[in-house]
């Protein structure tokens, strides 16, 4: 936190030349030991010897300073205003802060309507267009504070640069973010961890044979399967190698996104409590999107059909996982809404 300042710096030329006795104290700032020492107390004459010595120590790097509680007196006597003194000028507002303030203003002018989770996800699935959800997440993330941590700033940056079109990575980011919020994960840092880890969770596959990556996952066995299972570790390796500053919980989420509640996941076969909820959410959403896009079985599916299969505890290849009770409940809510829509039609 920034300390409240006790002094402000001035230049020697700012002192009135016609006056020899000042109603304020003069201090000298020593840059070497970062300290302020009294040089001339108020109502004492600035005689020629003192003046020449002051000039000498200023030439050696000392800085003249006035106590902040005598600011008004100093300005009156010298006939100056705050803007004339560079040290009193307001610090420039960072462009990221200006940008954030602008987004907040825009959102205040036209606030986002409250999210009807099941309905809006259903609409996106049925129209096969996730752009409104992606755009919503982008707007929300752009209002995140820029003063918290590097991961939060990075999440904002990724959202601004990348959440602009409808593709599988952006779908996964938007759905994971909304699912996380639905499951009471809140606060800038936890949500930013999720945004960053979702963008980067599959980055490790660029380090593996592309022909193998494009083959349906259920057709990979033996060595190929074990190679594929290296991708969370490779993502972590790539992030560390490139010195990308990410929170440890974000890195853990990436590493654990294939862990499953039942202990059937990888790389560490973690179970239930040992897996962070964010990893379970990311793992389930990523798997649903991958399954629907055909990356798991080679056949494309409507996301609603995938959700239905999970809800019915289908034992189809590639869906034999336990995503955990809480995530299953969310999926159930969306599926129930779909059924209601169908009945209404």
């Amino acid at each position, binding site marked *: 936190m920034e300390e409240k300042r006790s002094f402000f710096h001035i230049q020697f030329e700012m002192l009135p030349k016609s006056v020899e006795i000042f109603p304020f104290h003069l201090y000298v700032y020593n840059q070497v030991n970062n300290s302020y020492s009294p040089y001339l107390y108020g109502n004492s004459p600035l005689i020629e010897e003192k003046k020449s010595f002051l000039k000498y120590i200023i030439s050696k790097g000392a800085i003249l300073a006035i106590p902040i509680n005598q600011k008004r007196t100093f300005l009156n006597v010298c006939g100056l205003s705050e803007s004339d003194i560079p040290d009193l000028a307001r610090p420039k507002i960072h462009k990221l802060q200006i940008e954030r303030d602008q987004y907040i203003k825009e959102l205040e002018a036209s606030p986002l309507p409250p999210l009807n989770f099941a309905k809006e996800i259903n609409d996106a699935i049925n129209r096969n267009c996730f752009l409104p959800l992606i755009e919503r997440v982008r707007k929300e993330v752009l209002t995140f504070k*820029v003063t918290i941590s590097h991961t939060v700033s990075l999440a904002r940056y990724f959202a601004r640069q990348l959440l602009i079109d409808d593709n599988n990575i952006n779908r996964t980011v938007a759905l994971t973010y909304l699912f996380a919020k639905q499951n009471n994960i809140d606060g800038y840092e936890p949500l930013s961890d999720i945004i960053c880890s979702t963008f980067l969770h599959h980055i490790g596959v660029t380090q593996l044979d592309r022909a193998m990556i494009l083959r349906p996952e259920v057709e990979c066995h033996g060595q190929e399967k074990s190679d594929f299972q290296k991708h969370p570790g490779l993502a972590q390796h790539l992030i560390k190698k490139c010195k990308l500053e990410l929170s440890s919980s974000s890195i853990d989420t990436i590493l654990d996104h294939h862990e499953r509640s039942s202990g059937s996941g990888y790389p560490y076969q973690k179970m239930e409590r040992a897996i962070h909820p964010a990893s379970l959410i990311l793992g389930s959403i990523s798997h649903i999107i991958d399954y629907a896009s055909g990356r798991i079985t080679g056949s494309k599916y409507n996301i609603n059909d995938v959700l239905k299969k999970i809800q019915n505890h289908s034992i189809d290849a590639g869906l034999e996982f336990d995503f955990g009770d809480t995530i299953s409940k969310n999926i159930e809510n969306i599926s129930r809404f779909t059924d209601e829509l169908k009945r209404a039609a």
Partner: protein
Amino acid sequence: MSTPEKIRRDDTHSKDFKDQLNQTSKLKLAEEEDTSDNDVIGPDSKGFEHLIPILNMYLNKEVNNENILLFTMKQIYQHYNGVAVILSYNNTTNDFAEEVVGHNVLQTEKKWEDEFNTHIEDWKRATLPTWSDSSFQASSNQFVYPFMEGANKIGVGIVFFYSKLEEKNSNQIEVLLESSRGILLEKSHNLGTKGKYLGTSSKNKKDNEKKEGFFATLFGKLKAS
């Protein structure tokens, strides 16, 4: 209907899930309140925002390898003004094959043939990423990034900078080039070579087992006699 065991497990999970969430959220909110408004933290993405669109293409079956490499090359040119060349390497013939050559696509003044003939032997020898001017003070620079799979060379990425490059961008060039590894691995595996760290192929494994069996039998017999 759920079995008693199922109910117990689900309840435990649900409670754990909520406990963990509450703890995390409380901790994070407390940290957020302590932060001053004045210290803006600018993001240093290390170029990952350029890698994510490449990943998107990478996972899309309809996009072929050539287009991904071309896109990578264009990203390097657009953001860092570097002319990238990616070559795959055939370990059997010790030859490079051109995958993407920035000089030809961008039609630069410098001719690819000249660069190739001047540096080919250096690229063959390279086993570590190298900058021709590691102080980043020179008016031109060249980054050579050999792609290795275990001890095998599978390719090399070279980025030519014909103007000064800032040192802070050097990591980002490496990140972008790294995205070509999967494609070079595919090429290398298609040529029948596979490095150690991804394990031996099932065919080689069988051969090794056979050899072990033969020697084991031989020494076994000698020992017995």
